[in-house]
């Protein structure tokens, strides 16, 4: 049950006084409570755990990590190259 899954916020509305949304997980859509993600907007990626968004994925940080890893390839090739 600890496996939080990233999904994209498709809609946001209210239900019984709570902020909720529809989140798209690669085609599967689920209702998710957004009470703990007040900053989440439509189009954002959120990490969802047992029906709650617990974190908004920072797109810039996601790309930065990948860029660091890709850049490491160049460094490695220079280090390990002929």
């Amino acid at each position, binding site marked *: 049950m600890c496996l*939080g899954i990233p999904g994209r916020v498709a809609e946001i509305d209210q239900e019984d006084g709570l902020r909720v949304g529809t989140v798209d997980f690669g085609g599967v859509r689920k209702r998710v409570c957004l009470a*703990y993600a007040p900053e989440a907007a439509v189009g954002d990626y959120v990490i969802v755990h*047992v029906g709650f968004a617990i974190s908004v994925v920072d797109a810039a940080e996601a790309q*930065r990590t990948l860029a660091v890893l890709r850049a490491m390839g160049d460094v*490695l090739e220079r280090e390990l190259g002929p």
Partner: protein
Amino acid sequence: MKYIDEYRDPELARLLLAELGRVTTRPWTLMEVCGGQTNTIVRQGIDELLPGGIEMIHGPGCPVCVTPLEVLDRAMAIAATPGTILTSFGDMLRVPGSRTDLLAQRARGADVRIVYSPMDAVTLARDNPDRQVVFLAVGFETTAPANAMAVLHAAALGITNFSVLVSHVLVPPAMTAVLRAPGCRVQGFLAAGHVCAVMGWSEYEPLAEQFRVPIVVTGFEPLDLLEGILMTVRQLEQGRHEVENQYARAVRRDGNTAARAAIRRVFRVTDRAWRGIGTIPDSGLTLTDEFAAFDARRRFDVGRLVVREHPDCVAGDILTGAKTPLDCAAYGTTCTPRTPLGAPMVSAEGTCAAYYTAGRRQEDRHASR
């Protein structure tokens, strides 16, 4: 899907492994705390690809596995009470109690239901005012905000036939217990990313300092785990012991402040028994007095429970990393995911189930070491 596929790129994984091989000069032993990470590591075979004698020990981070037998037996006693609907997550239903499991109890007529979220249990209570709806609320800091909101929401809606059987556990005290255990071999930790998404990482700084152990907040995809391992090994090789954050796309230093506030409002810290490990001081959450009316322990008197573990199960040694499933005679023989003797064989987050699903067999034992 975005933010998943990119972190499974085999080419980048190869780069990370090459870099790890370059920086590693001697063997190191690391522990990943979270069962979700154990699942990725074992299923992707990451532990078998690591260079230079780097060993991964699988930690006590499977919430299903560490839920005490007493709590399961209590849940089953409550489920047997007429007029009750007992709810929980699907993987809790197959965990063996002293005599049976919730799924078998359901087959015999008890009203036991799987819910996706604790909020579904609140809805069930609203729709069934003549029944008592109980939610078996287990899990780490990641699940606690959802359970806190279920209680807050039931209180706000004036629902009185809803209660929770709480058995929450906290990660930092478990890490402390692992580090204090005699013969502890763990030299560095991958901290559980989603626990830290809720709680942040300031709690880990005194641990890193006191035990001089690097702790790297790490995500769940293969690249996250490889980078987390690399960051931990770099610290060890350089003689550092700091808290670092690999999972910056999801984890901020202070965590999720709204979720933490809800946890503080609904729960207080208490001593907690961990299945197979024993009681760890200040390692759990229980309802505060303000919300005691939602406590299923108070609402249902089930008498005295006599609990009994299966004598062949070595779950405690598995959960603390003292043994691997391949050290257990029951693994893959009398104990399988279809006929589990203990909790680590039940949940996808359990070490034994992860080994079994990945096809690891007793005969691979020497090859894996």
